[in-house]
């Protein structure tokens, strides 16, 4: 595997049908460079949930992925409305997603808990009306 690889994506907040393209691309890249299937699965789940969240709640944003030999670091940054109570948002089943998002198969309040469950480290920094940055790490060893 290469020593370090950096991927950068712009996530369009206006097109729900395209949400997940960046995650699919990262997954493909990881497969090409020979990352283990378990790590690929975990990265795919957390990144996809994060990308969906960006589109649902923050009108898009940017994703940066750093692939080092021992760890994959994902930073998802948006300038959306922010999260007022992170602890509450982390609760499984808690959601502020509008009804139409639920009819699309998301918005059940599983996103953040899925991201925490499948990453090795997760940090959320958020300021109301300024934006949210989610940093997640998946270990490769």
């Amino acid at each position, binding site marked *: 595997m290469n020593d370090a690889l950096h991927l950068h994506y712009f996530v369009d907040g206006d097109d729900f049908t395209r949400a*997940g393209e960046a995650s699919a691309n990262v997954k493909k890249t990881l497969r090409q460079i020979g990352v283990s299937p378990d790590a690929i*699965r975990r990265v795919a789940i957390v990144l996809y*949930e994060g990308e969906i969240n960006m589109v649902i709640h923050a009108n898009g944003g940017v994703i940066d992925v750093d692939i080092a030999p021992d760890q994959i670091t994902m930073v998802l940054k948006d300038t959306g409305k922010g999260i007022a109570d992170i602890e509450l948002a982390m609760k499984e089943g808690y959601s502020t997603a509008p009804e139409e998002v639920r009819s*699309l*198969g*998301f*918005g059940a309040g599983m996103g953040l808990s899925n991201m925490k469950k499948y990453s090795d480290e997760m940090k959320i920094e958020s300021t109301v009306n300024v934006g949210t940055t989610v940093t997640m790490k998946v270990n490769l060893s």
Partner: protein
Amino acid sequence: MTIGDIKNILGCKVICCEERLDAEINTACGSDMMSDVLAFVKDQSCLLTGLVNPQVVRTADMMDMHCVIFVRGKMPDESMIELARERGITLMSTGYRMFTACGKLWENGLRGGN
């Protein structure tokens, strides 16, 4: 069981990737909630759903699934079919409702896995 066996059991119409009917399906899951699929699915290679939008195909792709079956005769649009074709995911549609479709597959030996 193969995708072809599922096609026969559920009387499915194959929408795309018909060349992959020989692919083996060991376990399956049924859900309209994609977050639940992402949270609880492990190695299930087939998804039955009543939900029809591109995120169904993307979720199946993220979970390395081989096949998606739309219940109640639902049909995906061209953009979904294209997405599935690019990823080699077989799309099929059955006239059965979710409960009956899952029951018929169970009856024929397919299980839900862990």
